[in-house]
Structure formats: structure tokens, C-alpha cells
């Protein structure tokens, strides 16, 4: 496990080119500053249609930003260092603050202060799934747990199953209890 930079520098993240009316990140990516009242209905509509590809793609871009900020392969980094950069990047973009919890073998993300986009928080789940997909180098699914701010990180193949449990009102501890490490 390497020790990449644990300090997250938010300085100069945005470059406001007022003469051209453009905002870029420090990585050169042009971004828009939008109201959550605009994004919310769009994400909600996408969730109803079952296609959150765009939100997941946004999460991947955020993951790329966090990885650049981290300066090393996230998979080899310390969990707290990775979390620092991911949470900082998300916060800079207005997505709230992130914490990482470990429930047994399961990793759980808790995103507090995030804007409400759709009732089931599937938009946020897709966003976080995109972030972790980039950082982890493989497809990752985040399933929202009803009644809270948590998202359990699972393999995409079982995401529907876990989502079914969550919709039934199953609490996080019970959901984790229903899971076991797959035998090699």
C-alpha cells in the first residue's frame, strides 16, 4: 500500500473566464454551474426511464478528478487518503461530503448534504458508482439504503437483489448479514 498525497488542495480548482463566459476545472474540463432545481428533474426523469448512464458518466469524471488529485493509483492508496480526495472533489462540485464505512466485509458510502435529485436516490447511487468504477478500475454498483444517506458497494450482478431488499425496508445491518464473501 502506497502513501500518496493525503492532502487535498481545493485551490485553483475552478478557472472563471468571465470574458468568454466559461468555467473550467484545473484539469481543463469545462463545467457548468447549474441549479439543483434544474438537475433534479432531469435526474428524476432519467431514473424513471431506467437510464442513468449520463449521471454515471459524470461520476466517472469526478473519479478521474479525484484520482488526479490523489496522484497515484487509488487501488493501492490508503482508504483514508482516497476518501479525502474523493470527498474533496465531490464537495467542490456541490455533491455533499463523503464518508466511508466498513460493515464487516462490506464497504458503505455515506453521502451527507447531497442535493435531493430523485426520491429513491438512484441518481446519487449512479454518481457514486461511477466514481468508484473509475477509482477501482472495474464496474462497481452502489445501492441506496432506504431511509438514510448510505450506499452499499456491491458487484453489479447483485445490485438488483440488494436493491430489492432495500426497497422492502431491510436495514443495512440485515442486508450485510445476508451477504457473504463468495468462495474463490
Amino acid at each position, binding site marked *: 500500500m502506497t502513501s500518496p498525497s*493525503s492532502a487535498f488542495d481545493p485551490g*485553483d480548482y475552478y478557472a*472563471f473566464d468571465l470574458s468568454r463566459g466559461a468555467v473550467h476545472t484545473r484539469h481543463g474540463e469545462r463545467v457548468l454551474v447549474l441549479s439543483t432545481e434544474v438537475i433534479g428533474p432531469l435526474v428524476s426523469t432519467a431514473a424513471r426511464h431506467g437510464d442513468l448512464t449520463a449521471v454515471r458518466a459524470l461520476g466517472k469524471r469526478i473519479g478521474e478528478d479525484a484520482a488526479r488529485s490523489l496522484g497515484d493509483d487509488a487501488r493501492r492508496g490508503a482508504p483514508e487518503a482516497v476518501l479525502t480526495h474523493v470527498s474533496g472533489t465531490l464537495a467542490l462540485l456541490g455533491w455533499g461530503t463523503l464518508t466511508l464505512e466498513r460493515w464487516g466485509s462490506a464497504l458503505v458510502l455515506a453521502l451527507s448534504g447531497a442535493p435531493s435529485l430523485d426520491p429513491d436516490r438512484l441518481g446519487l447511487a449512479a454518481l457514486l458508482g461511477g466514481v468508484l468504477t473509475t477509482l477501482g478500475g472495474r464496474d462497481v454498483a452502489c445501492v441506496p439504503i432506504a431511509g438514510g444517506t448510505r450506499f452499499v458497494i456491491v458487484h453489479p450482478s447483485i445490485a438488483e437483489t440488494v436493491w430489492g431488499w432495500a426497497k422492502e425496508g431491510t436495514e*443495512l*445491518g440485515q442486508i*450485510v448479514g445476508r451477504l457473504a464473501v463468495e468462495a474463490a
Partner: protein
Amino acid sequence: MASARLDKLKSLLKRVEDRRAKPRLHAVAAPRPAAAPAAALADLEELSTTTQRVAAPSIAPEPLRPAAAPEPARPTAKGPLDDALDDFGTDAPLEVRALAEPITAPRPEPRPLLIDPPRELPEPAVTYRPEPISLPARPSMPTPGMLAPVVPLQVAGASTNVTSKDTLEFGIPRIELPVPKGELSGPTQTVEPAPLAAAAPPARAVSAARVEVARSFGELLELSLSLRPR
């Protein structure tokens, strides 16, 4: 007699001048009576010979016409002086008749109004530009301290209220783990998982007292992704 004629001549000239001063009005004499007084015509002849220096160009007496043949209405194209001379020596009042066209002040020639611009303009007629914006030397990102949220930290099994004072870099402090470094031992103490099913080990696994080998983020992620329903 000569004085009376001179007075008449002066009056005539004054009327002529008055008519010239009103170009839009046309003085038309009333139809001449059938029996024009011959004396008046004689006076006119005499006047024309004695006062040529005053009104020489147009004081030409009209030829006498038979008394029985009434003179048709004079064409209005005659000059005002001719009309006045026609009235000279008669008692018929001048009739001021308006022209067919309304008497209005002369209108200037209409000029094209440049309201509709040409279809092709090399540049806009009026360009509004914003005032220049002076940017600060360093644009506008708040310092880490300004962004530091006051939220409980939920990493490594300890819940700590983090303020900007003790926050390092964007509100996420360097983490001093109470367990071996790198170990994320579970959620906060205030959010204990509910009792699990009988055979479920996670409740023990999330205990902060349990010491595990430090794992990288990738290892923890792989572990979570390897979970399957029992």
C-alpha cells in the same frame, strides 16, 4: 381727377402685392357684368398709357367684347396682377376662392426613414458591451479553512466533531486511527448495525476492537465486491 387715378393705382398695386404675398390663394374676379361701364375701360386705357413705369408689363387692357356676349369665366391660370386689373374700375368685390387642393403648409419632400436597416450590415448599428471585469490576481477559490465543514467524522470508528481549527485540507483531517492504520473498522458508534441473523458475522467484524491487517482501498473494494447473497 389725376389724384383720384393715382389713388386707384396705388390701391391696385397694394392689392397686387397682397395677392403675391398669398401664393396659395387665387383671386378670381366675379364674372364681369354684361354691360361693363365704358368709362371704366376708357379710364383703364388712359391709365395704361400714363402709368407704364409702375405696372408696365401686365397692364394690358382686355379687348372690348360685345356687350351681349358675357365673358366666360377667366381661367385661373392668370396671374394675380391680371386679375386685379380686370377688377380695376369695377365695383365687383373680389371673391377669394380656395383652390381645390387643401390649403396647407407646404409639406417637405418625404425622406426615407432609416428604420429598417439594410439586410446585410457589416457590423451592428449599436453594440452594447459590458463593462470590463477586473479579476483578482488569484481567482476566487476559498481557502481550505473557509470550506471546512463542521461535521462528525465517521472514519475509523470514532466520531469527532471537526472544525476549521483542527481541520487539515478541506475539512477532512488526517486520520489517526485508533486501530492499526488503514483499518476502517466500521461505522460510528452511534450507528451500530442492527442485530444480524444468527449466522451472520458482520456484527463482530465491525467491532473497533478487532485488529486486522491494514488493507489498501483496492483490497477493501474487492472484498466488498466479492459479496454475494448467501
